[in-house]
């Protein structure tokens, strides 16, 4: 395979899957230009003439009517998370109908989708573009998808790829907790309610064919709705689109781990002293243990100082909803929700707004939400002394996680903080060089661990924080010092055995390739 080196000195292939790749050249270089892709003009089906209905009797009929062909690209959203039944139902039907060589372009996959491995082995699916984690990631790490090379994208990067025409979707299947027979679809009502349908909004606009699959068919018109009937070709009503208990949790709970709580406290203290904590500021929340704790502590600090935030972007949980209800934040931008309280709020609170992903994070839009956001709290599997962040692979080389909105948020916000325990199962998170670069160091301002805090000397915010906090009680140190400190506890790990063979690509939000993932030798 012919390779080239990108600006982070990562070796990537010159081409993959029959396309010439663009090497990463810096976080803010590939600005766009040219024309967007465009969906086909629908062939009009006026009811007055054809009497045709969009409602299909089952999934098979919808697949037939969509005109799916071998080699096509199909998409799904992941709002139903590990409770999703739709991906497996549709893919099994597609396999039963004898289709081959499909490209799957989900916004994310979960452990519940492990049966897809069998379909990859059978040749029904030839490639995944989007996100991979858990069992499928492990399968891919061992070379299971070769000779095709899957491409991982962030949420914003996926929206960009669709709009720019890098990812053309033939048929989008959209699981909808509520829909009418004309295709108006809504996420916050119904027995399988999941909140927004934000990830699939872009699919509904750009895919050639759009199939809505619901288990709560309501009388026309379904109002309010997230996906309008004008985007939808076919509708299927089935018994169950998912397992409600696994779609959202009844309550989201904050971590009880004292180590994680300590990291959250450090993060809030940094925010307090960063100069960003002022009326009208904004931040990102999530459902991760540390992030939830930060939301809670930050809310308490805001209440104490009588400071109101203008908006929260998320990853919405009850903790963010509470801040809205207490008047401590003006509005919630909601890309996904994690608990029932948040779904209810999304349905009822006017200031809680379902946010299409392209609005949220698309770099090739005319300005996206993350660019207006002050603070983002992010995770990592590894970081390195250049502040590059890995969220995809573990230190042993296995590709086990998708990107989510990580690198979009890191690039957009004024202060991006990586909040992580300094080691997991004795494996240190700070390395000389990360196994895989997901987010480039130039977009990361701070690394916060229980053992110490490092600010990036090459970002403006990193330098400001260093100046403001070097004499505080916080354990601020250089990243090399922090690395040494952690290694004194964990010992230095030996290098894992990785082959040169490339099994996946990490695409940056601008469509360039930031890194390639190597095959693991087990």
């Amino acid at each position: 395979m012919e390779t080239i080196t990108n600006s982070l000195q990562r070796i990537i292939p010159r081409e993959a899957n029959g396309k010439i790749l663009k090497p990463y050249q810096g976080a803010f270089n590939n600005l766009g230009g040219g024309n967007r892709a465009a969906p086909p003009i629908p062939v009009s089906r006026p009811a007055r003439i054809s009497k045709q209905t969009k409602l299909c009797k089952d999934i098979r009929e919808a697949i037939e009517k969509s005109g799916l062909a071998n080699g096509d690209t199909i998409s799904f959203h992941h709002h139903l998370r590990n409770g999703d039944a739709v991906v497996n139902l549709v893919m099994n039907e597609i396999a039963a109908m004898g289709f081959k060589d499909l490209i799957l372009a989900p916004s994310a996959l979960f452990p519940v989708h492990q049966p897809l491995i069998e379909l990859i082995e059978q040749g029904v699916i030839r490639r995944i573009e989007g996100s991979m984690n858990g069992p499928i990631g492990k399968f891919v790490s061992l070379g299971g998808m070769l000779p095709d090379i899957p491409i991982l994208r962030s949420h914003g990067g996926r929206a960009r790829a669709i709009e720019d025409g890098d990812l053309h979707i033939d048929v989008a299947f959209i699981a909808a907790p509520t829909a009418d027979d004309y295709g108006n679809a809504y996420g916050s009502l119904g027995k399988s309610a999941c909140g927004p349908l934000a990830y699939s909004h872009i699919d509904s606009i750009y895919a050639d064919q759009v199939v809505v699959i619901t288990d709560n068919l309501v009388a026309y018109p379904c109002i309010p709705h997230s996906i309008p009937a004008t985007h939808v070709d076919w509708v299927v009503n089935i018994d169950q689109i998912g397992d409600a208990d696994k779609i959202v949790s009844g309550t989201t709970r904050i971590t009880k781990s004292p180590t994680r709580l300590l990291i959250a406290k450090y993060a809030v203290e940094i925010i307090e002293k960063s100069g960003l904590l002022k009326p009208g500021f904004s931040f990102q929340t999530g459902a991760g243990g540390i992030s939830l704790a930060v939301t809670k502590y930050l809310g308490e600090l805001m209440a104490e100082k009588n400071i109101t935030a203008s908006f929260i972007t998320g990853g919405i949980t009850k903790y963010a909803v509470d801040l809205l209800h207490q008047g401590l934040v003006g509005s919630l931008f909601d890309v996904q929700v994690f608990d029932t309280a948040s779904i209810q709020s999304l349905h009822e609170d006017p200031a809680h707004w379902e946010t299409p992903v392209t609005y949220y994070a698309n770099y090739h839009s005319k300005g996206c939400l993350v660019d207006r956001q002050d603070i983002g709290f992010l995770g990592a599997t590894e970081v390195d002394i250049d502040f590059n962040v890995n969220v995809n692979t573990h230190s042993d080389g296995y590709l086990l996680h998708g990107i989510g909105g990580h690198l979009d948020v890191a690039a957009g916000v004024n202060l991006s903080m990586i909040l992580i325990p300094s080691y997991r199962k004795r494996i240190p998170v700070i390395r000389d060089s990360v196994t895989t670069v997901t987010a480039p160091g130039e977009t990361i301002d701070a690394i916060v661990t229980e053992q110490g805090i490092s600010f990036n000397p090459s970002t403006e915010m990193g330098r400001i924080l260093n100046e403001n906090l070097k004499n505080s009680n916080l354990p601020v140190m250089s990243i090399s010092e922090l690395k040494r400190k952690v290694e004194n506890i964990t010992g230095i790990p030996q290098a894992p055995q990785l082959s040169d063979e490339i099994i996946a690509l990490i695409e940056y939000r601008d469509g360039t390739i930031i890194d390639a993932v190597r095959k693991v030798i087990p």
Partner: protein
Amino acid sequence: MNKIISKVKLGRSSLEGQPEKSDLTVEVEPSESLIININSSVKTLYREHIKKLVSEILSEHQIQAVKITINDDGALDFTIKARLTAALFTAWGSSVQQNDFSHPPLDSISKNLVDLKSRLRRTRLYLPGNNPYLMQNAYLFGSDALIFDLEDSVSPHEKLPARYLISEALNFLPIQDQERMVRINPLNGEGIQDLRVVMKLKNFDTVLLPKCECREDILNADKIISYFEQKYNYGQKQLALIPLIETAKGVLNAPQIASASKRNVALTFGAEDFTADMGISRSPGGEELQGAKAMILLAAKSNGLQALDTVYSDISNPQGLEQDTITSKSLGFDGRGIIHPEQIDIVHRVYQPSPSEIEYAQKVVEALEKARAQGNGVASLGRKMIDAPVEARALKILKLARKLNLI
């Protein structure tokens, strides 16, 4: 070493035999040659490291032929070392030594013990002695002291591995300004073995002695500690002692306990055992404990010792902890035991001198200095006369404020 006499398996594991998080199981078996098997959730990155560590420990003990099977879930080196050492000692069998403890108790105290007397002890975090996962980061949460517990939180069959784990943890963890305490078992039980192992590495400050009931208990402890200090060449370093009073008899004898040894730096109260001994249950307000607490406070303060309160065991009730600590402080206690890191900040906040307290204390000291400069023995502030107790209280507040970087 002698010949191996028994097959041994050590370390915390689940019912299915899987090691607990950050822990490992070690199996030692007789063998004609050296066999080391390592199964680990981090083996891709740490197999060689672990193998090297095991070989080093074996050669330290001059063991050439043995079969070692390790099942690890990301344990740090100190845990691996502790588990292996404990397993080797058990496998080889060690005869319990009989010692003559007719060593005199401490008669003059060294500088390190003087320093220990005035340590800040607002919070002492209890750590179960056989759980490496809970120990690893405990020093990061800012309690004034850490208690590595060998008594109630360790089941009888885990006492031996726990001793080695605590020794290695104290040796390994970069604990800086916190007082390192070990709560041993009563000396009529496992306590002597506890001291024999944990005192060897000379890396802690204070012995917490449970179920103290009379003067002789303390004298006995003092002698045994003195014996091991000499045996292990402690030199000028002297261990402090904190008697734990948790029975009706102990409460009645608190004055004798407090004055029994120069090693004593504080008396502490244990409410759980005390209420059990009294045959009563603990109420939210703790009215049933008032008599015992008063006795311990008087005994401690009249002997120049700190008085430390019992733990607040409901970790889900921060408001209750705060209220209880406010009361505890107002009675005269200098701190309390805690069982979860989330309790630390709450207790420290209660013990923190308020800005108005600090300001008043500064005024008191200024007024006195001024008066003394003018040759007056007494001073007044506003319409209040400043006498010796007022001055003492002000100095105490300022000392604490300085220690906490508030001034």
